[in-house]
């Protein structure tokens, strides 16, 4: 583990009900990645906020029982994943008709950032972003999680396996299948040599 990882655990250990300064620093370090991870697994920005925040609270309350063998972020992401899967399981037990009718749409309705683009380029970027998001949402939560951890967090396969509590073989398959599915969806763009940026 790196010095920063040790530092994370030190901050957690030093936090208490009376002194939350160290914990606040820890949350600042990891909130955005945890939120983005939750958003990717759960597919809904508002629920992702709840999940990410609850994950930090759970970690804080259980801090005396936690072991510092793994990286703090690995543990945090694992908690986020479990809460997100619980939320998805809860949702799947009682979906509303409107939710069922909009299965393939991104749940938070966010469109890709267009930045300063000509209208045509912006429309194409939006279309491409929507295709990617649509493709991701058709994957299972764990496929999405594995792809996110690889592509955005840059984790090695063994670190992804540890985070997702999966075998190395499963992680390889999830990433391979996820990319293959996305590659198929992006085929027209790849044929034309276009990309999101």
């Amino acid at each position: 583990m790196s010095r920063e990882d040790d530092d994370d655990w030190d901050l957690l250990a030093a936090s208490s009900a009376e002194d939350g300064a160290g914990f606040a620093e820890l949350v600042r370090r990891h909130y955005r990645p945890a939120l983005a991870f939750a958003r990717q697994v759960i597919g809904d920005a508002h629920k992702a906020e709840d999940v990410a925040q609850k994950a930090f609270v759970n970690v804080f309350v259980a801090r005396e029982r936690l072991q510092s063998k793994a990286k703090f972020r690995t543990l945090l992401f694992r908690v986020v994943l479990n809460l997100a899967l619980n939320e998805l399981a809860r949702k799947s037990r009682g979906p509303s008709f409107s939710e069922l009718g909009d299965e393939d749409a991104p749940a938070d309705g966010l469109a890709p950032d267009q930045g300063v683009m000509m209208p045509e380029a912006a429309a194409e970027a939006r279309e491409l972003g929507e295709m990617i998001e649509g493709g991701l949402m058709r994957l299972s939560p764990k496929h999405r999680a594995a792809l996110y951890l690889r592509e955005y967090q840059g984790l090695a396969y063994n670190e992804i396996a540890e985070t997702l509590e999966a075998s190395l073989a499963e992680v390889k398959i999830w990433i391979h299948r996820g990319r293959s599915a996305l590659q198929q969806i992006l085929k027209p763009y790849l044929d034309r040599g276009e990309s999101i940026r």
Partner: protein
Amino acid sequence: MNEPDLRERLGAYLDGELGESERRDFETELDRSPALREELERLRRTSGNLRAHFEGRAERLVDDRGEEIAVERIVRMSTQQLRRGDLVAKRKRSPLMILALLIVAAGLAIFLARPFLGDEPDATELVRAASREVDSQMLELDLSLAGLASELIALAPEDFELERFSRGRLRFGPGGLAHLALGLDPETGDYRIQAGRDLAGAWYLSDPEGPIRRVESLEDAAPTPALAAVMAFGETLRASLEEARSNPSAVEMVGRVEDELERSLWKVRLGGSRSRRTAIFWFDEEGRLERISLGALVGTVNRDARLSAADFRLDRIAPGLEVEDLPR
């Protein structure tokens, strides 16, 4: 090297996950094949697009002000929760709390004795409580079965040689849930049931060539940590049902649940949690697959969709078996 293997290696190469000699071999292959180089380039661009997409999303999820508000909220919630926990722990130790607990215990004893005092307890609630217990264990079981599936491959490659697994959720009776591991044969593209467990604690296994069979124990086949977790789940479940059964008024209700189990109705979604393809596997009392119903999920906007046996490749899973449409 076959194509699926090659494509998987492309990904591992791109991610720097090949060992030294594997990487050298692969690069030799790359030098030889322009098509492979082109495929690598396409994969690299797919990966780049995905990364850009994730980055864009992450940047827009929260701004600096939003982040600071979230940090304050998390710290406030965390410290409050901890203080509440400490307070409860202190109160638990006080003589007053012990007295209060005694009063609650007495009340509970009176409540539990109601069946013998003439009042009717709410049997439905008891069974619902058992079902909630099942639900609360679902996630753990789900994860354990995923682990079990990969362990089965490693332990008994001759019997479980399928490479990819998906997990279907099985629904037994009112509120009861259990799980099933489905294997996808990479060569034929067929789904095959690999292992599953019903709420009565029986295991179902499938040999590559044989029928689905019901077995009493899987311990000898695969004594693994994942299996132990799944079996522990079964114990919890049986204890819950036992508890419900001990109440005289719940007997009829539990009996109905058990009848459902005997009929072993397995409802499986294929193709991920959002898939609309559904197959219901009906078993007879001996655990033999009796018939299969196919269709789209009831309640989706696509409820009129019709699927055929070919969509599920059932001719391979259960040749000659009666297949019917799901009732509308």
